[in-house]
């Protein structure tokens, strides 16, 4: 017990740093930021695994030791409990009056009655009564005493053991399932289709034993994305809600698919996978033409929201078709407004006054050697800035349907208004950020956690107690013999009710004696 206690306290203590330092598992950007802000101590912290607390050597050591100690503790206890379950209730102690809960009553055995038979019957009544109350009972008669020994509450230890065993179950399920679990993220723009293969994911974290080539084959089309915003001037103005990604899922060879809606808190299941809605944003449709007017780039490029009013940041990369590789760093404002500082910002998340602005960079995008690059960032180290900042050339600013010239007469860039010819209701497409995952361990974890709770409740709240009722013939009495009936209780573990239970058993027993024994005996013995 002392070992378990020390390990538990260590576990609590060791969990705390994980909330003080950003964790790679929960907040990878926070870790990057920490390295940037504190380059002096970050590597040292990293060496101590403070950014991976919950998979660290020291944290794992504590919980593994805890579970080793737990298993080492419950196995002998299970054995002992199994034995106890088959054992008889223990022999009645010779001196019940030593117990904390002890009551004595007197009982008169008439002279004409058989003393042994009479007292045996008195105890038999108690025995029946205790058995009815789900006690395990055992008679111990002899040497002038008659007694019943009763025990109940074996469920307490059973619950206790179930709780601890179920905790092992939880841990094993978590560890075992982690090898077969995978989570992938993907951004899907309205009107486009995502195919469930590894290459179509923007990020994918498989467990060790996941066969990434055998994902369930289906495609998912985002037909439309709905969102509602609180009106300006109301409390919570601009707050977004009622997100709904209306999707169609098709399996190979199927013409018509299954239409469904993914909402927050309401993932959909398909092929053993669950599809979650994690985020959303705008994907302005941008066209770049060269000097001759030929289209060299056209995409609805997702712009990632930077604030709750959906000021969004996006990158357009044009690797071919212009004299140099070109990167456009863009901001999208669904409702552009001016801050006091003179900077632009979106002041409302819906499309009231949509504007996109670009700064143009030319040079090398850094993709020619095949290095994979994040489509949401631009590495400007090999590039020259052509507009904005201190170039003296003002940046590009476009409203839906507008075009502007690229610097040096290289061509034009257009912010398409898709409501013109796509019959879309809004000029800008939206995107949904989906998470697709399979976690076959979760139901097991839930099962064991429920078992643990059930075990906990019975293990903590069911009282385990022993009760004895004993009859002893003591003194001669006018017209018979005076006997003593003793009632005693012993708590095994926490049992706040014991005193009143012993009293109730005494009262019930006396009441039962009064009804069961012949009238004249009862009259004499009614308390």
């Amino acid at each position, binding site marked *: 017990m002392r070992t378990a206690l020390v390990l538990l306290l260590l576990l609590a203590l060791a969990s705390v740093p994980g909330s003080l330092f950003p964790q790679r598992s*929960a907040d990878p950007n926070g870790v990057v930021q920490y390295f940037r802000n504190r380059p002096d101590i970050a590597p040292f912290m990293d060496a101590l695994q403070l950014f991976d607390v919950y998979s660290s050597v020291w944290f794992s050591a504590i919980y593994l030791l805890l579970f080793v100690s737990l298993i080492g503790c419950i196995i002998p206890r299970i054995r002992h409990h199994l034995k106890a379950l088959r054992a008889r209730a223990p022999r009645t102690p010779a001196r019940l009056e030593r117990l904390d*809960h*002890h009551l004595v009553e007197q009982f008169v055995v008439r002279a004409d009655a058989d003393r042994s038979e009479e007292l045996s019957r008195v105890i038999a009544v108690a025995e029946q009564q205790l058995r009815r109350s789900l006690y395990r009972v055992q008679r111990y008669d002899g040497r002038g005493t008659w007694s019943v020994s009763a025990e109940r509450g074996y469920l307490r230890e059973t619950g206790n053991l179930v709780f601890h065993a179920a905790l092992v179950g939880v841990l094993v399920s978590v560890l075992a399932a982690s090898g077969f679990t995978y989570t992938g993220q993907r951004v899907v723009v309205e009107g486009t289709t995502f195919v469930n293969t590894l290459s179509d994911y923007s990020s994918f974290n498989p467990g060790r034993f996941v066969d990434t080539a055998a994902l369930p084959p289906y495609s998912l089309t985002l037909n439309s994305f709905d969102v509602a915003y609180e009106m300006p001037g109301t409390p919570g103005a601009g*707050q977004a809600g009622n997100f709904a990604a209306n999707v169609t899922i098709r399996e190979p060879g199927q013409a018509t698919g299954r239409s469904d809606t993914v909402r927050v808190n309401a993932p959909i299941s398909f092929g053993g996978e669950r599809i979650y809605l994690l985020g959303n944003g705008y994907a302005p449709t941008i066209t770049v033409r060269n000097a001759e007017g030929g289209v060299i780039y056209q995409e609805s490029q997702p712009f990632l929201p930077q604030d709750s009013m959906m000021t969004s940041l996006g990158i357009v990369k044009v690797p071919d078709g212009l004299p140099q590789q070109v990167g456009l760093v863009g901001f999208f404002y669904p409702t552009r407004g001016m801050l006091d500082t003179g900077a632009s910002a979106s002041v409302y998340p819906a499309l009231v006054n949509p504007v996109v602005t670009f700064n143009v960079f030319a040079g090398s995008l850094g993709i020619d050697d095949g290095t994979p690059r994040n489509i949401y960032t631009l590495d400007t180290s090999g590039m020259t800035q052509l507009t904005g900042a201190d170039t003296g050339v003002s940046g590009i600013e476009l409203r839906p349907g507008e075009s502007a010239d690229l610097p040096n007469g290289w061509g034009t860039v257009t912010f398409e208004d898709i409501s013109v010819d796509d019959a879309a209701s809004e000029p800008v497409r939206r995107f949904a950020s989906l998470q697709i*995952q399979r976690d076959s361990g979760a139901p097991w974890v839930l099962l064991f956690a429920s078992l643990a*709770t059930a075990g906990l409740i019975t293990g*903590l709240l069911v009282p385990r107690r022993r009760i004895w009722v004993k009859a002893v013939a003591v003194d001669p009495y006018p017209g018979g013999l005076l006997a003593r009936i003793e009632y005693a209780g012993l708590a095994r573990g*926490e049992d706040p009710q014991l005193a009143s239970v012993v*009293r109730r058993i005494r009262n019930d027993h006396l009441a039962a004696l009064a009804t069961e024994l012949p009238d004249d005996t009862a009259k004499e013995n009614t308390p």
Partner: protein
Amino acid sequence: MNTATLDSWSLLAVWTAIAVYMLAFGAYSADLAQRSVRNDRPARQPALVGAGVAETARRDPAQTSASEEGADRPRQPRFLWARVGTSLTMLGFVFHLAGALMRGIASGRVPWANMYEFALTGTLLIVAIYLLVLLRYDLRFLGAFIIGMVTLLLGGATVAFYVEITPLMDPLKSVWLVVHVFVASLATALFALGCGLSIVQLLQARRERVGSQTGRNAGPGFLRTLPRTETLESLAYRFAIVGFIFWTFTLIAGAIWANESWGRYWGFDTKEVWTFVIWVLYAGYIHARATRGWRGTRSAWLSIIGFSAVLFNFTIVNLFFKGLHAYSGLS
């Protein structure tokens, strides 16, 4: 009546409740002061319900059952200020409940969806549990602690965390908001009572220790009118185990909700970490009670540390730690 008006009525009710609680706190403090100056009464076991735990059961059923159920009855007219405190607490509770109900009706949802509302409902449950427990155990000596804490939390939250009613954010639109947060608040209330008892237990243990060694009185005089250490300890334990069961349920309900909302049942988010830390601390407390050398004073410290972690989780973690549980409604 529109939303804003109803909310302003709710706020008025809450402020009234705070004012009444302050008076109740004053009355309970006066009660403790009065208990302290009564030198004439011998140091003995008061008729606290459940005090029979370690006591040999008495023979007379009528007498014992009276001491068991009737402790809050006028059998103890001498604690006048405590009765005033309890009456004021009930009055404050009525306003408090009205405030929470009106807030809920005005917002059209459960009144525990942001930091102000957590505090409003959480403290309401603490008072509710305290009053309920009074029906069975005379714990009015905890009134100053419980009502003092509730006044601070509720007053602080109303001053610092009050926000207008805004529609529910999407992730909170779930039946688990009702279950998970409510059960967590219930557990908090039980832990609060357990912690209060553990504090008194420590004081009492010191008084008994010093008293047996030197014959002097140590600590505040009102301790003489309170139950013995063992009684306080077993009561504290009883509240803590029920709280622990609720907390376990909170943890599991939270994991189920996280699996629906975030696509994983456990991710060591800061709030998850602290919920886990609290669970482990109370698991440690329960083990300590069964460990030789840890019963009594040491386990009482664990109960106090556990509840401190609960308060830390509710305040500091909500406000200053970065994580997914960003529903304080404060910017």
